[in-house]
């Protein structure tokens, strides 16, 4: 089915932006492919809510920690077009996000105690 004209326009602009960022070396080749694939699946398959949800969750607490780097590497290396691989890697990232959130909680607690 052809896309709605507005959506088509957003889709093309987003693709060009990703392509342009790669050309200007602001993002790597792997990051470009990941983002283009994500865009394609989000627009055409509309079944990426789980993946988008973990991406938002990741970005919300992103502080370039070691765990963030591991999550990013997992995101880029996974095959998201294959259902089984996507489900497995989603779970891996959810576990990593939980570990990061636990660490943040621990840090908050220990920080709070120091002040008391």
């Amino acid at each position, binding site marked *: 089915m*052809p*896309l709605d*004209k507005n959506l*088509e*326009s957003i*889709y*093309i602009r987003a*693709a*060009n932006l990703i*392509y*342009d960022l790669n*050309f200007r070396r602001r993002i790597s080749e792997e990051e470009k*492919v990941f983002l*283009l*694939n994500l*865009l*394609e699946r989000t627009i*055409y398959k509309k079944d990426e809510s789980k993946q988008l949800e973990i991406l938002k969750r990741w970005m919300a607490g992103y502080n370039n920690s070691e765990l963030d780097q591991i999550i990013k590497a997992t995101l880029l290396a996974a095959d998201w077009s294959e259902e089984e691989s996507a489900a497995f890697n989603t779970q891996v990232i959810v576990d990593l996000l939980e570990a990061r959130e636990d660490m943040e909680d621990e840090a908050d607690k220990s920080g709070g105690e120091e002040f008391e």
Partner: protein
Amino acid sequence: MNTVLWEGLEKDLLFDLESERRVLSSMMHSEEACIEGYSTLSAADFYSPKHGTIFELICSLFDREIRPTYVELLKEGHSLGIFTNPRDLEEIKYIAEHYIDDENVKYWISRVKDKSRLRKYESFLRTRYQRLNEEMDREAEQILMEAEEELTNLTALEIDDRIDTPEDMSRLGYEEVERRFIRYKEIQEIHKGVLPLDGLPTGFDNLNHITLGYKQGDLIILGAQTGHGKTAFALHTAKEVAVNSQHNVLYLNTEMSRQQIALRWGAMLSAIDHDRIRSGNISETELSIIFNSYSRLRQSGFYSYPCPNLTPEKTISIARKFRVQKKIDLMIIDYIGRMDKIDPRLQEWQMLEQIVKTQKMLAQNLNIAVMCLVQLNPDGTLQGAKRMKNEADLLLKLAPIPREEMDENEDLKNYINPNYYVIVEKNRDGRSGIRLPITFDLQKQTMKDAERK
């Protein structure tokens, strides 16, 4: 004066970038347009080299069953080193953004094709004009004859058409004789006198022997009365070709559901009664046998397309797609009497005639075998039989052997349980008017040559 004339021509007549963009955009947005463009055009038909490149990228993705979206085109172009600079994207971006309407693609394709032919004509005029200046000593007759031949090719023939020269025809003839000579030797030495097939196996040794298989470009028509095994015959053929011989088959069914087709396969492959499979009245051991049987189907080349609203136009589009993407060798249409009419004013026989003509053309153009199933009248005759017979390369009928014939025909008594005939009514490449006794197990949905005692 001349220069002005040429320049005027180029502007008004020789290309139409708007049509080229519309075709490419349609191909990016609609599968139907993609099939049409892929089958009708080549990169050389586009005036703009960029458009030709985009067309090739779309075709390359379509070949691999990847939807040619904007992002996929970017990735493909980048991986092939075509898009190395954001500026390279300007044309494709323009097309994707400005032309998302995919209606009337056939019209736009014909515009692109017409311009392509006019450019060839213009090139012909230029070349001839140049040669006239360069070869002033040549005889007028010779110059005109050469020009006429070239012009005939431009005006009368499509790109895919060709004229066989005497040289072509003699080479083809020799190659055919040589191939048959080698095959004859193989029959004598390797196959111990058994003819190897020229085409796809039919699933019956006797029919294989008479027809040498279903060949590329053949239209096979199989007629049977209602409830006399048309679908069983079609699936028996599919099993032989797709499961046993590992060729790819497209099966179009106009009246059965996906579940019904899948269950029939269970019976055919496991040799367990179809009724018991349908009702679920099977043992655990049989369930396990059926499960294992389906693994043969899983590894086969059988592609099923249940399509209650099938039209001749749609068969063309589906067949083209599956030929490109799945490399099918055989398409089976079960059955053509259920196909929708394009024009409601057509009589039944006119519609059937139109359908078989389309299927014959399809078989030849795609170089595949096409099997059409048709319904026989209650008296065993075929509606529009004469016309169908004209188009068919092989016309078969499937009919139960009448009880009185079983009692009276001495030859049938030499067989174990013959209950049906496959009747060869027409066979373009061999003998016809032959009745082959077979055994059709209705419950297991299996067919085989009737065994001699």
